[in-house]
Structure formats: C-alpha cells, structure tokens
C-alpha cells in the first residue's frame, strides 16, 4: 500500500508520528508529509519534541520556542523550548506560594528545592510532555505531525506516561485515605463539612493531563505511527526490537518507510565497484525488509543528490513520497 493510499483510507488518523533511530530521516519525512497534507488543503501542525530539534534547519527559519510559526498556506511548524517552558513553570509555582501565604519571598529551602527539581534530567522530558498536551488538546489543526525523538527516547516518553499514571494513582489513594480520617475527625467533633482538598484536585488535574497525551499516542483510531528505516542490518535488528516494544505499549504502527535506497538505474551506467557493492548490500536487506514487514512497507525513498532543506527540496521529496 502506498503512503498516499494510507492517508486517503484513514482520514480519521490525525496524529501522525515518524519514529526511528537517529539520523535516518524522521524530521525530513515529517516535513514532507506535513507539506503534502497542507497542499491537499488540510491544516497541519508539524512539531518537534526533541530538545535538539531540527525543524528550524529543514524549514530554514528560526522557529525555536516561538510557538506555532506559519511556514506556508495551511502549514505551521513548532519547536518546543523546554527550558523556557520550565522557567515559566517555576515562576508560576513561586507566584502561587507567594500568593497563598502572603510571603515577601519564597523561603530559602523551598526555593532550593524548586531549583534542584528543575535540574533533574527527567524534568526536561516532563516539561515537553506537558507542553505537547497543550498542543494536541487545542484541536486547532486537521493533522498533527510529531517529529519524534530517537527510538530509545520515544519509548521512554511512552513508558513515562504509564509510570506517571501509576504514581498518581498511588498518591491519590493515599490522599483519599487522608481525607477519610479528616472527615472522621469532623464527625467526631460535630463540625460542618471539611474543606475541599486542593491537593486532591491538583492530582486529578495532573492525571487528566497525563492521560490526554498518552491516550493520543496509543489511540488506535486517531494515531498512526511510521517507522523510518534504511536497508542496513543494524537498523533492521533495532527496529524490529523497537516495533515489538511499541506494540507492547499499544502504539498503532501504520507502516515502514525505507529511506536512502540507492537508485537501481545506476547499474545501467558505468559505476565504480564501491557503489555496486552498496547496491548489492542494499538489495540483500531490501529482500529482508520485504519478508519482515511485507505489506507494511509504505514507501521506498531514494538517496537524494543533496540534503533536504528548504521548501523546494521538501516539495521534491513530498512528490517522491506521495506522487505528483
């Protein structure tokens, strides 16, 4: 099945992801797909959750941390600036503490904690995770294209949702138990209703945020995940392992896109042995790809003469992937 057909047959799949090992062409395919969809008259947002995002490079426009930036008719691109997001968030917490208790300044040990927590490695991922929720629950676009982080991170990203959810469940339970004791005391003292537990309300809010994002990632109806691969042994081994893990997290895999295929037409010409050997090697692995993924292979994309940057190259690539 071709890529075009997949999109035509599943118009309800609005959250499109390209995943794969680093440097195989996730960003390039995300951009080309977004370009094509925009040309079909769909309103598209392509965004990156990678702290080292490269959408700015491919669109040749600095969009980092600027919110959704319009690239052309129907097409917006966004790179999330995690640091900026974290700083704004820290300030929000500080302000809340000052407002709640009428402090002049945040107490020192609390301030230290706020800073230490933000230095933690998980903080950046969580901040991006949270920012993504804002983007996707907005529902302003027909299509959302996730330019995902390399595989390992993507898995971490997915499993994080599960870990968060369990963590929240546990503390919510404890909080509810605490509430029961509070109500018991009120009854014994014959006081009126106990105050609303604001922490419990917060916890419920956090849970809805986490579920919103992870449910989209694993939504069989609305989400489609493409693996980007190249015809090389190591990539195939890693990808099939990752595909298994993704299946465990219920990520709906829509297909495989094979990148960097050296054009076979070259064999007609007088080419050096080096190139001939590469073509032979690729032939071997293309055969393997066929037996491994069969019908799921949605497209073969040739190795291009130059790297894909700028709208003109993106258009050329989109034509290769989706037809003119």
């Amino acid at each position, binding site marked *: 099945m071709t890529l075009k057909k997949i999109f035509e047959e599943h118009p309800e799949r609005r959250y499109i992801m390209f995943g794969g090992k680093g440097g195989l062409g996730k960003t390039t395919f995300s951009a080309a797909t977004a370009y094509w969809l925009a040309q079909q008259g769909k309103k598209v947002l392509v965004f990156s959750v990678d702290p080292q995002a490269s959408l700015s490079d491919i669109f040749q426009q600095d969009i980092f941390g600027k919110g959704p930036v319009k690239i052309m008719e129907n097409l917006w691109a966004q790179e999330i600036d995690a640091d900026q997001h974290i700083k704004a968030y820290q300030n929000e917490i500080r302000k809340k503490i000052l407002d709640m208790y009428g402090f002049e300044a945040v107490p020192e040990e609390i301030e230290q904690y706020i800073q230490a927590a933000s230095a933690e490695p998980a903080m950046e991922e969580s901040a991006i995770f949270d920012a993504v929720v804002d983007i996707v629950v907005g529902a302003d676009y027909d299509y959302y294209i996730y330019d995902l982080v390399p595989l390992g991170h993507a898995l971490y990203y997915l499993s994080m949702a599960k870990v968060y959810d369990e963590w929240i469940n546990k503390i919510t339970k*404890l909080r509810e138990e605490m509430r029961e*004791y509070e109500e018991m005391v009120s009854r014994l003292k014959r006081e009126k209703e106990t105050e609303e537990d604001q922490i419990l309300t917060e916890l419920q809010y956090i849970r809805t945020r986490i579920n919103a994002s992870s449910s989209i990632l694993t939504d069989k109806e609305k989400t489609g995940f493409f693996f980007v691969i190249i015809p090389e042994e190591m990539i195939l081994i890693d990808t099939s392992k990752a595909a298994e893990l993704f299946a465990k997290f219920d990520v709906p895999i829509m297909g495989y896109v094979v990148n960097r295929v050296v054009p076979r037409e070259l064999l007609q010409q007088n080419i050096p042995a080096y190139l001939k050997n590469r073509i032979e090697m690729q032939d071997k692995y293309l055969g393997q790809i066929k037996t491994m993924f069969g019908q799921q292979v949605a497209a073969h994309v040739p190795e291009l003469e130059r790297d894909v940057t700028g709208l003109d190259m993106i258009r050329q690539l989109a034509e290769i992937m989706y037809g003119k």
Partner: protein
Amino acid sequence: MSKQEKKSFWQNVKEILYGMASHDMSRYALRTRASMEHLFILITMGDMIGIPILPPYYSLRLLPYVVPQIATWKRRLLREKDLSDAMF
C-alpha cells in the same frame, strides 16, 4: 436568661461526653492523619531530603500546598529512628 444557662449546661454535657467518648478517637485520627501527611510529602517531595522521587515536574505543582508542613516534616523524619515508626 435561664434558657441561655440551660443551653450552656447542655453544651457542657456535650463537651464532657465528647471528652469521655470521642476525644481520644479524634486525637488518634488526627495523629494518623498527620503521619499520612508526612508520608505524602515524602512520596511527593522526597528529593528534598535526598530520596529520589519520580517525577519532579508534577511534584512542583503540589509544592505550594505543603509549604507550611515542610519544616515539621523534616524535623519528624530526622527524629524518628525508623520510617515505619513514623507511619504507625
């Protein structure tokens, strides 16, 4: 006037009964509640005393609500020999 006295008399009886019957119970419930509060802070803000807890991003959201309890929580954890003592 007499009605007022009567009311305060009943009020007294009520309070004596409360003292006899349920004061201990509510004291116990409050104590348990306080221990749970500290347990709660531990599992959300554990990083503060060096116990790594997942995930800091959302812990921060809860921080403002526990600010007043942080000092007593730290004191308590340092005083108790064993965490399980603090829990029960």
